[in-house]
């Protein structure tokens, strides 16, 4: 299969975990970002197939980054990563065009299910 993924989260720990999940399943990590601004810049540079975007981040939040990316690429496939109890933010993200969401702590199969659904496999 091999989806090209951009992993965005301000915590190194989370990024590492996600990267491992994707690599183990045969996908490629094309880049990482630790805040909204970096995410937008990396998206434009790398043009990934999929972005996993943390919601709460310093400088620019995941939701703002989502909106800005969707503005210049309406087909962008962005999956939000939220912590427990951030329902209102997830709703906002979905309304702003997020393709799906996963709640931390992640379960490996959940993450991969989302990828499969988003890419219609």
């Amino acid at each position, binding site marked *: 299969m091999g989806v090209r993924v951009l992993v965005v989260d301000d915590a190194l720990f989370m990024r590492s975990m996600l990267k491992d999940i994707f690599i183990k399943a045969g996908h490629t990590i094309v880049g990482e970002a630790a805040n909204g601004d970096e995410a937008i810049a990396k998206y434009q540079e790398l043009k990934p197939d999929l972005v996993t975007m943390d919601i709460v981040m310093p400088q620019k939040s995941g939701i703002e980054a989502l909106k800005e990316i969707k503005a210049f690429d309406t087909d962008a496939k962005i999956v939000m990563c*939220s912590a*427990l109890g*951030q*329902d*209102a933010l*997830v*709703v906002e*993200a*979905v*309304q702003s065009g997020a393709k*799906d*969401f*996963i*709640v931390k702590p992640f379960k490996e199969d*959940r993450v991969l*299910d*989302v990828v*499969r*659904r988003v890419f219609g496999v």
Partner: protein
Amino acid sequence: MDMSQYHDLFLTETEEHLRHMSQLTVALEQNPSDRDGIDALFREAHSIKGMAASMGFDATAGLAHHLEDLMVGFRNTGNVPPEAIDLLLAGVDLLEGLLADISNGTAERDVSAFIAGLVEPTTVLPVSAEKQQAKGATSAPLVEALQDVQVVIDLTSEALAPSARALLILEVLRMSGQVESCKPTLAEMQQGFPVRQLSVWLKSGGSEEEISKSLIGMADIKQVSFQSDRRKSALRDEDSRTVRVRTALFDQFINLTGELITNRYMLQSAAKAGDWKDVNEGLDLLTRLVGDLHHHVLQVRMTPLESITANLPRLVRDHCQKSGKKVRLEISGEGLELDRTILEALSDPLVHMVRNAVDHGIEQEGTIAIKAWREKDMAMIEIADDGQGIDPEIIRNKIVERGLLNEAQAKELSGRKVLQWICQPGFSTRDSVSETSGRGVGMDVVKFALEGLGGMLEIDSEVGVGTRFLMKAPLIVAIINILIVECAGEEVGLPVSRVLRTLDIETNDIQFSGGEPLLLVDDEHIPLYSFNRLLHLPEQNDKISIVHLIICESQGRKIGLMVDRLSRQREAFIKSLPSSLNQLPGVSGATIKGDGRVMFIIDPHALFSDETNALEPETEK
């Protein structure tokens, strides 16, 4: 000017106009040059436009206006081309959707894309998907045969951020069709409402299977299920329960009220003067006036059958398009008026039986004839098709397969009895419910609904000839004529509509066959039953020479009920019983006697309708 007071009226009137438009369009398909039909359709669209514009519903007014323009074009050419029929029907569907938006209080949906397709009717008339592929045409708006689908999605209990999940599901469903409404509402979901179940009403060209498939892989879903058509009709709308009353009827009310007032003064002075003769005369007059008033009040609740049959031509047409069959629908007797509550209860069963006839009854081509007429105080509604008929052997096999009866018992069932078995719950001789038939209303629900009203369902079928369903329902719900009989000192009522005749016979007239008492009446042998015994009441032990008999109909045959005494006939307000008492076989209701005591109403038909409680042969002691 405050238009909100006209809101309900707007909804009811527009709904009716849309029903007519639907009927007219389907009729025009058969008669494309019918000038009257084209004119009528023009007027309906024009009316809707006017009302919507006054109310400020611009999208609705705009669409109606364009449909009206379309009709003007056809008035000039004198002919409605077949492609326009699909277009018009799609327009009607959209108007219904807009009406639903208005009724829900949400913003009118965007119909500009559809209108764009209407503006150039001669060059950009939408063609069906296949025709388009054949012609290799460029993008013209597609018009598919759309169905109303209600999707119900249950979320798992562990689902996190359920409102966001519901929004995602809604997004996916939007790709399968047009979302008409949802529960919880969009606003509620956006506010983070803790969704556990999401219901979405869609107008979709896709099958239930396709819709289910689109949700595969979506997290947090426990179950996806579907419910059949739930078209809102003025009859079922709880919020705006209004009735239309003919002005002539209204005048009668005014007159009667006047006469009652006069009558009251008359009674008052007669009582004051102690003049009993005048009081009695006054009471006689009062009885007549109250009877008249009652009769007229009931008329208000009477609605023509047409209100539930109006959508049937369109339904049949859509089903034909989907299945490629050619089915003609003939309806007669639509003017028959019934009580509104009864009509409401008959609406779904009628739709179900028509669907069945199209899907299972008719193979390729055929006719479905719906006839309605009145017999005594019952409405008769017949749905007959000239299709393949129901094969009793297939049913017998299914019965044995399900272990409900053994082979010998199944063989013994008469043709008529076998057919009644299709009304057993969950009984379908198709292994998979056909896509267009949908689920939700089975024959068991139909039969149950009818019997609950005090009616019944007769089924007749011949392989290769056709099938006939006859629904018998009371015309009026609350009041029926009952015959009062006495059994072991208890007064019991029987609906007069169930009584064919009463008869006094001598015990010597009773014949016996295999231990069962019979009576020969008009060349027919009728089995006799002791009503006391059936009601588990003690029987008269004295030797009697005269037997009082009530001949009634039960399960399509005549039976005779032996009672102790025939009392009298009267009108009775039937009250339905609480569910615990409703389980008693044969008890269809109760009424309050003059002395305040309760009298049960027994329906002889229902006494024997339970298959496991089959007619027991009576043996003479």
